[in-house]
């Protein structure tokens, strides 16, 4: 496919490229390696050493502590449920709307686009949003965490643009064959949009997984809290200065162990990190191979 000739310049560039990217990858990933290492270290070592990749004394106490009750399992389950159900909802809403808005001759298209862009920038804020959800009777239900974010205007616009880029010849031939719009979407457009669906599915999924604020706002029952709420609370508790007068609590409150904090971070991050590698095959080149030409 690609020419096997490489000039000296190109070879040099390649070498430089590999080194530079490797360096960047290391700088990016090492702090997380520290997190993992720290979660397997003793508290004493964490206080003493600022940064390390391999603990001197290994300890799984932090993980034992976290998993000794079912709280964390439950919150992981909640997070998974919200992520999966949420992403499916997102894709359903976004892809349908993006597709119909991608038809250039749709009446009212301009109006809808303006409406969407406007809503991206002007928002009522936290309180009115909460009141709407309350009126719908969704408080304390998972729908309250999923529905208000069903469509990201940002994602919608990009997906729509992508649909517009598809060769028009494709749909024409499908329509000539008697397909309805649904059919065109389902059978032709979506299969060709795998990188797009993978990308934005990932974006939405990560958004759900990392989201703690909606859960805090709408879920009153602490048994319904997703993992990120737990995680954030633990991290914030560690941040409290010892005598911070805003933390006016009697002797009962001690910040969580550093190791526990790191272990929760690892548990909260590793699952979602694993999603992208699985999707990478959809980013392979040549997905548009075989597009109808003439």
């Amino acid at each position, binding site marked *: *496919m*690609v020419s096997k000739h490489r000039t000296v310049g190109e070879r040099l560039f*390649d070498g430089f*490229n*590999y080194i530079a*990217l*490797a360096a*960047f*990858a290391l700088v*990016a990933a090492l*702090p*997380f390696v520290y*997190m993992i290492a720290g979660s397997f270290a003793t508290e004493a070592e964490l206080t003493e050493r*600022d*940064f390390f990749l391999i603990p001197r004394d290994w300890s799984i106490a932090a993980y034992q502590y976290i998993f000794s009750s079912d709280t964390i399992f439950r919150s992981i389950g909640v997070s998974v449920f919200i992520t999966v159900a949420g992403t499916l909802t997102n894709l*359903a809403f976004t892809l349908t709307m993006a597709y*119909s808005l991608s038809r250039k001759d*749709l*009446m009212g298209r*301009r109006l809808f*686009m303006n*409406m969407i862009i*406007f*809503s*991206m*920038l*002007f*928002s*009522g*804020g936290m*309180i*009115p*949003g909460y009141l*709407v959800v309350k009126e*719908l009777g969704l408080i304390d239900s998972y729908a309250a965490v999923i529905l*208000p974010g069903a*469509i990201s205007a940002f994602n919608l*616009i*990009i997906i729509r*643009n*992508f649909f517009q*880029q598809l060769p028009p010849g494709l749909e024409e031939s499908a329509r000539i064959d008697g397909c309805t*719009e649904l059919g065109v979407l389902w059978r032709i457009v979506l299969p060709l949009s795998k*990188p*797009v669906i993978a*990308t934005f599915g990932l*974006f939405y999924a990560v958004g759900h997984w*990392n989201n703690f604020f909606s859960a805090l706002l709408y879920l009153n029952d602490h048994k319904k809290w997703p993992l990120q709420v737990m995680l954030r609370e633990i991290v914030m508790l560690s*941040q409290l200065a010892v005598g911070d007068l805003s933390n006016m609590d009697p002797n009962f409150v001690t910040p969580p162990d550093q190791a526990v904090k790191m272990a929760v*971070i690892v548990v909260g*991050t590793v699952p979602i*990190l694993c999603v*992208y*590698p699985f999707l*990478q095959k*959809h980013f392979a*080149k*040549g*997905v*548009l191979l075989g597009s109808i030409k003439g």
Partner: protein
Amino acid sequence: MKPAWAVRLRRDKWLYILLLPGLLYFIVFKYLPMWGVAIAFQNFQPFVGFWNSEWVGFEHFRVFFSNPDFTRLLRNTFLLAVYDLVFFFPAPIIVALLLNELRIAIFKRLVQTMVYVPHFISMVIVASMTYVFLTPQGGVLYELIAQLTGAKINFLSDPDWFRPMIILQIMWKETGWGTIIFLAALASVDVEQYEAAIVDGASRLQRLWHVTLPAISHVIVILLILRLGNFLDNGFEQIFLMTNSLNRSVADVFDTYVYFVGITQGAFSYSTAIGLFKSVVGIVLIYGSNWLAKRFGQEGLY
């Protein structure tokens, strides 16, 4: 004789049906709560509610613009936004293009997975780590730079280094994640065009310039336009965590100001007013840049 619009409605019936769920979503969750914007013109108190809160017209805007700190806030916000656009925005594009040039698939996948990890690390942790690395009291990077260059740079407190530090933090944290969308775009580039270019004898650089870049240009332009909509938004949490008494003169931006004045003191209206101001600027920038993009023959937002 049916009116033209009814004909089109009938013809595109399915399209409108597909459109319906999304439309409902926007109406219910975006437009219904939009009355909240009017809070900017009130002295809104949560318990008292919208209908009973006192109206004050443009008072908050007046207070905001006449605040002696306004110029400083504007300058800080603007400069950070510009730095972000100039230095951070191209970074994921460049890295994506570099990744695209890799031949060893396993290396490529490994690098891709590693560079996007920082996106998942909470800003609180990033701030703590930044302190550990840069503290003049023994921070690893601080010592390293001091040894290599002899310069004792206190990134954490020196106002001159605040903006570079913030941008470097953002670049470390978000570049990898940002490459994902460009890699997806690159994957959709028509392979046949590459082959044609090679047959024509194009070098790598020429292939980049004439095939690759044009192919992803529409994604770049869209992202740029959308980014401009949030132009005056700086990452509140990041700035808040990295601000201290010694660099506040350059660190204070609209977002942190809103936090201190608005949230801690419950002045919802004031923070909404400032948010409204930012939104207006954002809308102007979006439509302006969209128009500009179209003049250059790009697709634009619509």
